[in-house]
């Protein structure tokens, strides 16, 4: 146990003292600080320059040419009341080259009526979001026609408008967890989980392989028990990862609290108003996911002799992780209650991400959560035991990484392990 403590301390402090690790952590905290302080920073800059905020003078408004001879009187004034951002100019266009006028920049757009319910809309180019003018034009024209028609029946313009614009009041109640409320923080946490398992898992594998390739292992293996070496290293790296994630999350929450009043962005607000139990689940599944994969990465690291070989050898685990991640995305965007998702959320390799998504976005029965956690803990324990066996044998093997069949044979033949 003492040896385990020494290895753990060595690995953990080694990370904290590492310049890259410290640099990345500080950079991320600063980046978060800048992003979350952005609204306050922006208002700081703009407060001294209120003139820029004033409405643009009449002449600055884009001018739209209207030929409403076929539609009725006062169309330009009506449209100006519907679209206050534009100036409208009524004219006969029969003899004019409308395209040229628009391309020359004299007019922003042109609306030319063939009949009260038929018009052509000219504009130089529609962007990907179209034109706000075009978007509202159809509705405006329809309202105008209906109002005129009702007036023709002897109904006052005010009454006509009331009839036309009458809107039922609707309220939507989601009986499960709200998609919009849960989506963003689930996505953020899932991504953090995914990234840290990949990053720190890789680090475990590389660190083990590095000790083999620089032959420090020859010294270590005769000095300390392989179990202490492996578990001490994995716990040390895991704790370093957890420290980093904790620092970043705390910084994010801290800076959000400082700037909370300035944020009216729904996404950001939903991110930081996640329930406490979700944070606890994040911690639980982070630990489960990390250790399950870290044991695998540790075992694989012990099989390669050169750090260059690590990347190719960890590919199967990477595929598993990417698979778990995409399955989780599918669950988030599609149906988190589908049979495929429910079944896969009990497979230990997927549980940390998939069960986490389900808990965040739906109401998962308690027994299912407990079952999946018990299964994953049990499986992680098994992987730890297996990895320790592989590590014992692996650290003394040099040359090409063994094939799976070879490995099983060696493991079987090694007694007392």
């Amino acid at each position, binding site marked *: 146990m003492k040896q385990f403590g020494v290895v753990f301390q060595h690995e953990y402090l080694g990370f904290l003292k590492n310049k890259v690790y410290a640099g990345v952590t500080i950079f991320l905290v600063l980046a978060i600080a800048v992003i979350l302080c952005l609204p306050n920073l922006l208002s700081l800059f703009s407060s001294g320059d209120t003139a820029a905020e004033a409405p643009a003078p009449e002449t600055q408004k884009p001018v739209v040419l209207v030929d409403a001879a076929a539609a009725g009187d006062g169309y330009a004034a009506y449209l100006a009341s519907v679209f206050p951002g534009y100036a409208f100019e009524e004219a006969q266009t029969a003899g004019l080259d409308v395209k040229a006028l628009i391309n020359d920049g004299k007019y922003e757009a042109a609306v030319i009526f063939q009949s009260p319910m038929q018009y052509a809309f000219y504009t130089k180019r529609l962007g990907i979001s179209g034109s706000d003018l075009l978007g509202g034009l159809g509705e405006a024209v329809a309202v105008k026609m209906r109002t005129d028609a009702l007036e023709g029946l002897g109904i006052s313009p005010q009454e006509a408008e009331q009839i036309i614009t009458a809107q039922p009041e609707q309220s939507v109640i989601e009986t499960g967890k709200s998609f919009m409320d849960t989506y963003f923080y689930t996505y953020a946490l899932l991504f953090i989980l995914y990234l840290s398992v990949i990053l720190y898992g890789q680090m475990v594998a590389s660190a083990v392989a590095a000790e083999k390739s620089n032959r*420090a292992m*020859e*010294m*270590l293996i005769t*000095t*300390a028990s392989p179990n202490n070496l492996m578990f001490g290293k994995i716990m040390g790296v895991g704790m370093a990862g957890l420290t980093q994630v904790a620092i970043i999350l705390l910084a994010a929450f801290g800076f959000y609290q400082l700037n909370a009043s300035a944020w009216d962005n729904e996404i950001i607000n939903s991110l930081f108003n996640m329930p406490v139990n979700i944070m606890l689940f994040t911690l639980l599944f982070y630990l489960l996911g990390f250790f399950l994969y870290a044991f695998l990465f540790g075992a694989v690291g012990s099989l390669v002799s050169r750090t260059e070989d690590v990347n190719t050898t960890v590919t199967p685990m990477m595929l598993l992780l990417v698979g778990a991640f995409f399955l989780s995305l599918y669950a988030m965007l599609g149906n988190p209650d589908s049979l495929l998702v429910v079944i896969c959320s009990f497979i230990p390799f997927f549980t940390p991400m998939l069960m986490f998504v389900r808990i965040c976005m739906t109401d998962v029965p308690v027994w299912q959560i407990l079952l999946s956690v018990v299964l994953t803990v049990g499986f992680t324990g098994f992987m730890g035991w297996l990895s320790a066996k592989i590590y014992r044998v692996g650290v*003394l093997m040099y040359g090409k990484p063994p094939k799976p069949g070879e490995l099983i044979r060696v493991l079987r*033949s090694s007694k007392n392990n």
Partner: protein
Amino acid sequence: MLLEVRNIVKSFGEKRVLDQISLQVEGGAALGLLGRNGAGKTTTIRIVMGVFPADSGEILLDGKPISKSGVTFGYLPEERGLYPKKRIGDQLVYLARLRGLSRADATASVKKWLGRLGMSEVYAKKLDTLSKGNQQKIQLASTLLHNPDIVILDEPFSGLDPVNASLLKEVVRELVKAGKTVIFSSHQMGYVEEFCDNIAILNGGRIVLDGNLHDIKMGYPRDRILVSLDKGDMASSIREALERAGASGLVTQLIPREHDVVLQLTDPLKRGQVLAALSGAGLAVDRFEVLTPSLEQIFVEKAGESA
């Protein structure tokens, strides 16, 4: 402290790597563990240190099965290597603490050993800034930091210049004198002869020769005498002297070599008469000694035949 290895057998897969290995090492007398590459030296050492178990056989310390907690090992592996990018002091303290020293004791011991090896100034340097020989000394320090009971040195002299080599010799002599159990593995026979009272030669996973080096040498027939004179044609002078003393019958063969002559005697016990004949003839004898095989010759003879 008596370390005994009894009838160790070890196979990796189909291949039998060690076959009934038995050894004895006593405190205060170093054992030279010799063998060609792949003879099983490293496997034997790893089994002794408990890195992996033997298929059968036992390791005893003072007659009792060895337990990892009861004894400390210091092992200098042939494949050298520590952390190239870490500060030397830090990694040595780490290794010492892994072997059970407290942080304070570990730091003190690291400083003591760096001083002993003349390297106090490298404590805060990174390992890869040192020359190969100096890295070797750091590795040696890491082996001895925790004052181990049993010291196993695998090729400790490779890469050392003569000054460092003599420093290391001094350290090894101190270890032996302090009663440590020392196992010394090397291909440089000169060093083995210098330090080791006992040797064991491994070949193809078996012990082909073991015992006290002096006894082994004495076990070879002592019927060859090396003679050298200060001047003149040595072979004819010796032949004349023998004839004059009527001792020609004692020598069956007279082999002139570049700087000396080897005499093959009919009876090794009659070498006194030969010496008397030479001095009686008034020859100035520089050397007159029984020719024993060198360790190198013994090694080539025993380990030379393919396993």
